[in-house]
């Protein structure tokens, strides 16, 4: 049977994604030059909320920063050494260690001195997040620090009390922001930021949904550079604009049968953050006609999905699409909290079964032939329950393998051994 060959084409939006990212890191550094504000916090933060302080408010989200450090292997090694010399364990979150190391070394990964934030604004999602920024604040000499506890259970058990717990902390947080910055809070800017955030995260889910097509219009290695925009600025208009253009482009690719790789024969999905310093593995797969169509991580960390009428996953309708007009601060916060707690890559903190169900849904709807789980020593939050996910997938008859590594500490990744493990898996799939 002749091999099917698909058309391929570089993404038109690729350069804009790069530009958005570099502008993000540059704008944060330069914020003070224009009299603006810098804040730091996790990518899971309610980033729409500080937007009410003005248009000149810029953030530095810790996880993407930590991943960026990983690309610079020499600098990452220095960061690890610096924090280990302070007595911190090397099995702690690798992003966090890259971040702390940068503070201690007083070096920003993109050059220059460490740009100290004016305040820290974050959420506590795993054992590390609040402690990450507690320690960062101390290392920086006592930067004001506010952290919202979102540990109210999985979305399907959300009730008024649990939502109110999160919303009341957000309300307190706004008062705190006014106090630490001396600025008056603008609810209109908050409302616009909430609209943006819902739109941007829904658009990313829409783009991921388009990847159900054969051939897949996007491969996961490319998606890593695209989903990340939401981890940096999901509340900003330029983020929404970018994803709209990307969505249109991916729709065209699907309509024109343009694939991410020309020789797509097998489709796999992964899990958790990849070993960022070794993304060549994803290109290695392509040699055998294997495309990774994404993962619960790439889809659901920043994409907000819902079950559609036909029972399949698709982008969640935004408040505006549902005819909801936000009029007050509290309403905006309630929508933001409820929206965020529906995030797919959050539910696993409460039950591996919830995650296994979502993974099996992706396998089915995205036509996945096999699953490659990254047992990621760098993030205990996203590897929580991963062994149970493996068992559940196996039980469902889905080919599954795992490889061990670390998203942000290359000392804990063996490239050749992993390639050998993947090759064995590809043989099972019949791809090699």
């Amino acid at each position: 049977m002749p091999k099917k060959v698909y058309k391929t084409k570089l993404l038109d939006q690729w350069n804009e994604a790069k530009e958005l990212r570099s502008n993000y890191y540059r704008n944060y550094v330069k914020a003070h030059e224009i009299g603006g504000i810098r804040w730091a916090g996790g990518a899971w933060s309610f980033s729409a909320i500080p937007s009410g302080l003005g248009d000149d408010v810029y953030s530095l989200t810790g996880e993407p920063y930590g991943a960026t450090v990983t690309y610079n292997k020499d600098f990452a090694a220095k960061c690890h050494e610096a924090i280990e010399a302070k007595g911190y364990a090397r099995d702690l979150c690798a992003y966090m260690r890259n971040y702390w190391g940068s503070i201690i070394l007083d070096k920003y990964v993109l050059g220059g001195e460490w740009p100290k934030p004016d305040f820290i604004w974050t959420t506590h999602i795993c054992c590390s997040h609040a402690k990450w920024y507690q320690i960062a604040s101390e290392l920086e000499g006592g930067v004001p620090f506010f952290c919202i506890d979102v540990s109210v259970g999985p979305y399907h058990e959300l009730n008024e009390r649990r939502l109110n717990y999160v919303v009341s902390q957000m309300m307190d947080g706004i008062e705190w922001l006014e106090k630490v910055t001396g600025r008056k809070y603008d609810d209109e800017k908050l409302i616009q930021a909430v609209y943006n955030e819902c739109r941007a995260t829904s658009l990313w889910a829409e783009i991921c949904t388009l990847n159900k097509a054969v051939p897949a219009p996007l491969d996961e290695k490319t998606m890593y550079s695209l989903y990340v925009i939401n981890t940096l600025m999901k509340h900003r208009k330029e983020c929404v604009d970018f994803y709209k253009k990307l969505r249109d482009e991916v729709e065209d690719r699907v309509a024109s049968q343009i694939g991410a790789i020309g020789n797509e024969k097998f489709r796999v999905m992964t899990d958790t953050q990849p070993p960022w310093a070794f993304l060549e593995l994803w290109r290695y797969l392509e040699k055998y006609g294997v495309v990774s169509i994404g993962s619960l991580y790439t889809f659901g960390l920043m994409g907000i999905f819902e079950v559609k009428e036909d029972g399949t996953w698709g982008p969640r309708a935004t408040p505006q699409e549902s005819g909801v007009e936000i009029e007050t601060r509290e309403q905006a916060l309630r929508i933001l909290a409820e929206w965020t707690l529906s995030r797919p890559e959050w539910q696993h903190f409460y039950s591996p079964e919830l995650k296994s169900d979502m993974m099996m849904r992706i396998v089915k709807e995205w036509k996945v032939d096999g699953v490659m789980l990254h047992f990621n020593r760098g993030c205990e939050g996203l590897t929580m329950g991963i062994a149970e996910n493996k068992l559940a997938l196996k039980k469902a008859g889905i080919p599954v393998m795992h490889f061990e590594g670390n998203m942000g500490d290359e000392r804990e990744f063996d490239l050749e051994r992993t390639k050998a493990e993947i090759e064995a898996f590809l043989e099972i799939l019949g791809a090699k």
Partner: protein
Amino acid sequence: MFEKFEEWHRNRHEYARKWKAETGGKVLGYFCTYVPEEIIYAAGALPVRIFGSHEVQSTTEPHIFSMFCPFCRDCLAQGLLGKYDYLDGIVVAQCCLHMRQAFTSWRIHIPIEYSYYLYMPHGIQNPRAYPYLRGELEDFKKSLEKWTERNITDDDLDKAVEVYNTNRRLMKQIYELRKRNDPPLTGLEAMEMVTSSQVADKKEHNHALKELLEELPERKVNRDTGIRLMILGSENDDTEFMSMVESLGATIVIDDHCTGSRYFWNEVTPRPDTLSAISARYIERPACPSKDWPERTRLPHILKLAQDYDVQGALLIQQKFCDPHELDIPTLKLHLEKNGIRTYFLEFDVTVPAGQFKTRVEAFLETFQLPTDLF
């Protein structure tokens, strides 16, 4: 004098089976000391803490990634091996990711009549946590009522609180005796007293504590106190380690462990609404590091303990891969040392290398015999 406690802890499975046979009540295993046992007790059930065995096992490898702490894996192993086959239910109060994972794997793989995940807040320094937790406790109470088919009245709750407060008060009185120049109990005995209270019926435990208190103040232990040590860090029920340390010319006079002082240090202060009072007790108890933010309340608390108990040195122990303690230990170590308390760090696993640890602890203790200008 402490034999009863040692026996309860060692034979905890037999104890629970016997309790069940005699009372016909249900036994509920819990994974973290943030579980409000009073409510379970008020429902007529026996709350028992799930412990590991300190025996090497391989049953949890398919269930929990090996970078999670040995304690959570050891606990799950006990369930998978059938050691807790008498449990009628399990409950976790939201704590570290590790114990939560042991709980969920248990729920999936070990047939059990009842399981409950209590969404205990992490942001305990936030005033919003009080009404929120009160509501979660109300849900837990209703769930227990449904399971046990028994209405938990206010009177039931108040009585349970009184039993638990008595237990806390008595253990604190016994801890108070450890401040003496010649403490009448060892750290090992104190540990077994507390861990046994986590598996025994509190009424029975209270009775034993009262008997102990009648004699303990006059007890003369046939040993030198030696170096006064504090022990703190991750979950620790390693009696072998405690015994080894205290055989080397030292006495552990105080701790900050969830198997020690953190478990019982504060009481439920009565309020018109008992569930609010219970909520406040769990929010205000000495914090686990996973909940100790944004302020570091553990630093002043631990330093005060060290000073009150006239501690010379502190053993900082940490279960391998225990992130919450890994995140606190460097700061704690500096804080204690700045305040004149020498520290020594040890990483624990399911089993500890007794010979190597003995040499290391000996070396640490020897530093107290050296001229101070060396440091």
